[in-house]
């Protein structure tokens, strides 16, 4: 869909997740506009637990729509420091505001972890085509 947006200041994975770099090595993670559109109405989100140590590619949670369920994969290695508690009661935020209120969780990057290998907006959008 041409009306879906992919902000330039985010990094992306081929699994349709975005990563926003924050202060002091903490990154925020969510799913892209493409993902929420493909899933349809999101009705349940199962997030990791604060304190979990995750490696790249680990299945750390689930996102479920009226139609299907998909795993959430860690895009970078680190420790889970915050999860978006609002999604328990209002999972539809993932549809209405995937890059804002619909964020999933935050990781403190491992010492050697980096977001450099992730896709930029142009590369992500190109591989959707």
């Amino acid at each position: 869909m041409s009306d879906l947006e992919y902000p330039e200041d985010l990094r992306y994975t081929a699994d349709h997740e975005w990563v926003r770099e924050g202060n002091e090595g903490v990154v925020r993670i969510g799913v892209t506009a493409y993902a929420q559109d493909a899933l349809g109405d999101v009705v349940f989100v199962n997030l990791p637990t604060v304190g979990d140590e995750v490696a790249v590619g680990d299945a750390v949670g689930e996102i479920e729509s009226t139609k299907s369920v998909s795993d959430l994969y860690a895009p970078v290695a680190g420790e889970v420091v915050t999860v978006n508690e609002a999604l328990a009661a209002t999972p539809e935020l993932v549809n209405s505001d995937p890059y804002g209120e619909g964020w999933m969780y935050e990781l403190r990057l491992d010492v050697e972890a980096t977001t450099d290998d992730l896709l930029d907006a142009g590369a992500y959008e190109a591989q959707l085509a």
Partner: protein
Amino acid sequence: MTFSTPLTSPLHDRHVALGAKLADFGGWDMPIEYTGAGVVAEHTAVREAVGIFDVSHLGKAQVTGRAADGTTAVDFINACLTNDLRRITAGQAQYTLCCTEDGGVVDDLIAYVRADDDVFLIPNAANTAEVVDLLSAAAPAGITIVNQHTRYGIIAVQGPRSEEVLEGLGLPTGHDYMSFVDTTWQGRPVTVCRTGYTGEKGYEIVAGWDETPAVWDALAAAIEPLGGRACGLGARDTLRTEMGYPLHGNDLSPSITPVMAGSSWAVGWDKPSFWGKAALTEERAAKTTRLLRGLRVTGRGIPRPHCSVAVDGVDVGEVTSGTFSPTLKVGIALALLDRSVKVGDEVMIDVRGRDVSAEVVKPPFVTTGVRD
């Protein structure tokens, strides 16, 4: 018939123009949901206002004639399918089942009686050819079964405001639940059936294949000021699950009998014969098979088909249909459970390795106005 590529409904170009997400449904490329709405919004439109569904993928077959010994089309169908057509008269419709001799379910379908020698059947899309083949093989000389799958389109108009929509088009309304009226609309023959699969007051309109788009366009215009929506088959599934209506392939199947699925009410037990009578009568008396129950999630999670169900760590059954209830905002399921499990019991559903607690309930999960 063998379909190598998905068939498309006469409304296919309407769905594409509305930005529908399409998926294979029994060999048919049908809308799951529409852009700008989605399953929850479409579901809610039906519960609160009105929705229109393209269900042209459903099968259509006509059974006509009478045999030399006086056996009519009604008599013939009554000796094959489970429900008792003697309970209804011309102008009425009946939910019934086509079983094998071992009691398994080939299909569930609606039979519309026009006259003793004229019965119209609406089976499920994927099972139509098999139902037609079985009936054709059993039919005596003088009784004819014709597969009319692509002769008619079907549009379901469902919801508390469905009557206003039909009235606006000058179509007949107000007839009883499970009855139908043959009429014309702008010179086109249509059948207006007071039937549906949502639990709401509603109608299903059968029109000629090539005339279905004109009916759809008129309905689409009529529902707009009422807060209505075009609805996909995703919403149809959440609506029917909230009602506990079984879906063939999930909750009824060659291995899930009407006795297990709680569909004994759709069996004419005292009829002289119907396919599967001996096996089903024995199963019904034995009272040993699992039974289809409702599960309402009390924990966090959404059950899906084939999730296992346990009580105190002991396996007691399996989910056959499971989804998120847009009305209740929780996971709900239909599950085949051991008879030791009773309504009110707490069970654990294994949802991809996570234990999700649920209460055993008697469907429907919501109260609705199908007979209002």
